[in-house]
């Protein structure tokens, strides 16, 4: 119990239910944010262990610790867990839930009970996904993309895994809906769209994608289940279907899904940089509009995943063109972040360090994405570990490092305590080194022809697989340093002031940890959110 505070914080509040029930039946957006954090951290740990297991298997050519079929199952479940249970809900569900109402001056999200329901749905879907690994038929072996026609024929637990993704989709749709309504209806008096902080802007853009794109993959997965159960023929040419239709439908969702992950990540970085440079964000409107532009154009680039599928030539150049266009708003953000740092009073603490690493890794991920967006080089490196490396630089180097940045940035607000700043910096540096050692060699051997999802390989690629394994182990050490420091901070850290980083957005105006209903009175907004005068 925090005796030094005169208010009741959301951590200490005792409502109708006590103990763990006071959490899982809570409708408080802050408690739900923490529930998401703990659940996602657990899923991430499971997914990361599976990832490390794959790296150990790839340490030597041929069988190392598992058979080929087991390897297929491990990379599929690694993908399903990491995509559907970690990175898609990750930033929106944790920091969006916790900080969206605080940043726009609201007491909660628009539909608190719906918010609670989404967490339950996430848990239900996650149980199904993890169960698919242990069922009698064996873990699904299709990869997280569930491509037809193989997924319609394999005897493994595809139906359970796709049902899990279908259920998890509802959590995503309802969260998106909740955030859109919250932003439209619950902004504080005086807060127009263009003096709303940029993290809510990013959430707003991502929420539209969640709301509009997720149903497409839901229906697609139902079609796949029906195909397996009843042999309808959606994806079977013998019955008038088309296997490429599955790829179209899958990527109509799953490419925008990348922006569900990365837009809130960009939003976090946009909050961290001005605070740790003590400088007004450069190009506020450009960043806000670029979030919407990424969301909008991002809907129309899905075909760049399908250049080698047999798609028409016209469609290939069309998708390639749009892919290059979507890089423009992303670059606008990067230039504005760097311009904000110029002549700023830089405070090199862990959140900012992670933000710098984010920019570095995101640029590598983004520029290699342009290589993949161009048709000719894509055909060369399609389905190689080059794609694996690009994908992880965007998703893990981007979304993951932004998540760590946000976690260190808002940790004092969430728990009311500080972590060890020096240990946090060391954690960031170790993670950065481990990450690059793990994934950069995959670019090189991918370019040389190392296929993805192969459990065996030619001996000439072993040097890179060994470096990647070492990188994976260093990455794990970094996790333990970071998590150990944060857990210790949450329990025994120094009491955090309301505004430890001298931030200017509304969440820093309330005590740490925040009171149950956030604000005693509705805040009146009279200035822009990044006023560092």
């Amino acid at each position, binding site marked *: 119990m925090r005796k030094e505070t005169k208010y009741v914080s959301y951590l200490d509040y005792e409502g109708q239910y006590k103990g763990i029930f006071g959490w899982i039946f809570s409708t408080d957006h802050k408690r739900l944010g923490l529930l998401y954090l703990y659940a996602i951290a657990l899923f991430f740990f499971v997914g990361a262990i599976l990832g490390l297991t794959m790296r150990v298997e790839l340490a030597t050519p041929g069988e190392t610790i598992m058979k080929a079929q087991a390897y297929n199952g491990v990379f599929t479940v690694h993908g399903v867990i990491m995509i559907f249970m970690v990175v898609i809900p990750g930033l929106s569900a944790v920091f969006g839930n916790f900080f969206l109402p605080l940043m726009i001056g609201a007491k909660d999200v628009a539909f608190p009970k719906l918010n609670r329901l989404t967490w339950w749905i996430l848990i239900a879907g996650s149980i199904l996904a993890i169960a698919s690994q242990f069922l009698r038929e064996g873990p699904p072996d299709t990869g997280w993309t569930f491509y037809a026609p193989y997924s319609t024929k394999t005897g493994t637990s595809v139906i359970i895994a796709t049902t899990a993704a279908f259920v998890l989709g509802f959590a995503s749709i309802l969260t998106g809906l909740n955030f859109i309504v919250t932003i439209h*209806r619950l*902004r504080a008096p005086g807060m127009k769209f263009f003096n709303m902080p940029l993290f809510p802007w990013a959430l707003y853009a991502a929420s539209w994608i969640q709301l509009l794109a997720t149903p497409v993959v839901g229906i697609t997965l139902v079609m796949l289940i029906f195909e397996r159960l009843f042999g309808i023929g959606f994806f079977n040419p013998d019955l008038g279907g088309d296997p490429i239709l599955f790829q179209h439908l899958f990527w109509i969702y799953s490419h925008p899904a990348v922006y569900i992950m990365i837009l809130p990540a960009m939003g976090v970085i946009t909050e961290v940089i001005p605070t740790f440079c003590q400088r007004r964000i450069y190009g506020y409107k450009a960043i806000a509009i670029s979030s919407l532009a990424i969301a909008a154009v991002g809907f129309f680039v899905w075909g760049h995943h399908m250049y080698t599928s*047999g798609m028409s030539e016209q*469609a290939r150049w069309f998708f390639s063109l749009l892919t290059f266009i979507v890089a423009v708003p992303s670059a606008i953000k990067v230039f504005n972040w760097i311009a904000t740092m110029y002549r700023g009073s830089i405070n090199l603490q862990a959140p900012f360090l992670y933000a710098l690493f984010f920019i570095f890794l995101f640029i590598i991920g983004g520029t290699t994405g342009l290589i993949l967006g161009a048709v000719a080089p894509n055909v060369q490196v399609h389905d190689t570990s080059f794609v694996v490396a690009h994908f992880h630089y965007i998703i893990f180097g981007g979304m993951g490092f932004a998540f760590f940045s946000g976690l260190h940035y808002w940790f004092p607000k969430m728990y009311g305590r500080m972590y060890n700043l020096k240990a946090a910096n060391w954690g960031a540096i170790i993670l950065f080194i481990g990450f690059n050692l793990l994934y950069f060699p995959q670019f090189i051997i991918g370019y040389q022809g190392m296929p993805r999802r192969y459990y065996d390989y030619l001996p000439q690629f072993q040097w890179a697989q060994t470096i990647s394994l070492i990188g994976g182990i260093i990455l794990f050490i970094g996790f333990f340093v970071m998590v150990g420091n944060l857990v210790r901070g949450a329990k025994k850290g120094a009491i955090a002031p309301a505004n430890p980083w001298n931030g200017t957005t509304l969440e820093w105006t309330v005590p740490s940890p925040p009171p149950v209903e956030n604000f005693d009175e509705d805040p009146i907004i009279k200035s822009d959110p990044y006023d560092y005068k």
Partner: protein
Amino acid sequence: MSEHTHHITPYKTLGIILVVLFFFTFLTIEITSIHLGALTVTVALLIAGVKGFLVLSYFMHLKHESLLLKILVAMVFVLFALIVLITFIDYAFR
């Protein structure tokens, strides 16, 4: 908080819309007896579109919402149309 006014649609209006919707449902069934060839799907979609517009406007109160919300809803349909159109860049030229 953002300003938001509530508008109550009279039962009479809702009743009229309900009857119109029933009429279009009847029309959807009856029109299948006419051989329209390639236009069959187009006509069915047009009728469904009109019904959807009525439901959105009256039953979901979009008629009384702000211009911004109307634009947002319209954009969803534009998005859907564009996605279908772009998909057919593949199918039409394959």
